[in-house]
C-alpha cells in the first residue's frame, strides 16, 4: 500500500487531526470545484477552470465543506506500477460502489492535480479506460461519487521519464 494512503488510513482510524480535515476537505472541495456536485447534470458539462487550476490538494481548504471522502476497496485502479513514459500512462478505473455517478482522476504531483472528471449517467458502466500524463512519480487518486457520498482509492505509480518536461 502506498505510504501516503497508509498514513491517511491510519490517521482516519484515530481521532481526526486538523491535517486530516484539511486533506479530506480538499478532496471534497475539489469535487465541488469540478462541478461534480451538481445533481442530475448529465449534459455536456461546462469546463470548470477553478478545478483544473488547482496546484495542490491542500489549496482547496478554503472551499472546505460537505462530507469527507472515504477510502474504498470497491474502487479498482488498473495501472502500471512503473511507467517508463510519463506522457502516456494507461489507466483503467472501475467502481463497484453502488450508484456511482462520477469518477475523477487526480495526480497528486502534477502541476495541476485534476486530470479528468467523468460523469457516469445511469446505464453507463462505472469503468473508464484512458491515458494520462504524469510529471513524476506520484500517487494517482481516483475519486468516486455515489449517492451523494465520496469515495477514493490511490495507487503509487513510478515514472522513469516525466511527461511534462520541455
Amino acid at each position: 500500500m502506498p505510504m501516503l494512503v497508509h498514513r491517511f488510513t491510519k490517521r482516519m482510524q484515530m481521532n481526526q487531526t486538523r491535517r486530516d480535515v484539511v486533506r479530506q476537505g480538499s478532496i471534497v472541495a475539489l469535487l465541488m470545484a469540478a462541478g461534480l456536485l451538481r445533481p442530475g447534470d448529465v449534459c455536456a458539462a461546462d469546463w470548470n477552470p477553478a478545478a483544473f487550476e488547482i496546484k495542490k490538494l491542500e489549496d482547496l481548504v478554503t472551499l472546505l465543506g460537505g462530507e469527507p471522502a472515504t477510502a474504498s476497496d470497491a474502487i479498482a485502479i488498473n495501472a502500471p506500477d512503473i511507467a517508463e513514459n510519463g506522457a502516456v500512462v494507461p489507466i483503467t478505473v472501475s467502481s463497484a460502489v453502488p450508484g456511482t455517478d462520477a469518477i475523477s482522476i487526480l495526480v497528486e504531483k502534477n502541476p495541476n492535480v485534476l486530470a479528468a472528471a467523468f460523469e457516469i449517467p445511469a446505464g453507463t458502466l462505472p469503468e473508464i479506460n484512458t491515458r494520462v500524463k504524469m510529471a513524476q512519480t506520484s500517487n494517482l487518486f481516483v475519486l468516486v461519487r455515489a449517492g451523494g457520498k465520496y469515495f477514493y482509492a490511490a495507487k503509487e505509480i513510478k515514472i522513469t521519464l516525466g511527461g511534462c518536461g520541455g
Partner: protein
Amino acid sequence: MGSPMKLRARADGDVVEVKILMAHVMETGQRKNPAGEPIPAHFIQTVTVTYGPRTVLSAQWGPAVSANPFLSFKFKGGEKGGTIRVNWVDNKGDTRTDATIIL
C-alpha cells in the same frame, strides 16, 4: 475543425463498448520551444458521447490527459446499427464531432 477521430462501437449482448482515439496535441502550456518561449496550452476541455438523444458519457479534461487521447467505456441498452456521436471542444474553441455505427 480538428482531425477526425477513430471510433469503434461494438455490441456484446446488451452492452456496447465504445473506443475513441482523438487526434489532438493536448499541449500543457508547461513546455517551452527551443527558443525558450512557452508553448501555449492547447487541450480538449469537454467531451460528450451520445447515443441518440441519450448522453452516455460526459467528461471535463485538463491538459494532463495524454496527447491523442484514448478513451474507452461501456454502456447498457445500445443496439446494433445505432449511432454513437462523440463531440469534443478545446480551450481555443475548436470543436469536432464524429459518428460511428454500433457493430
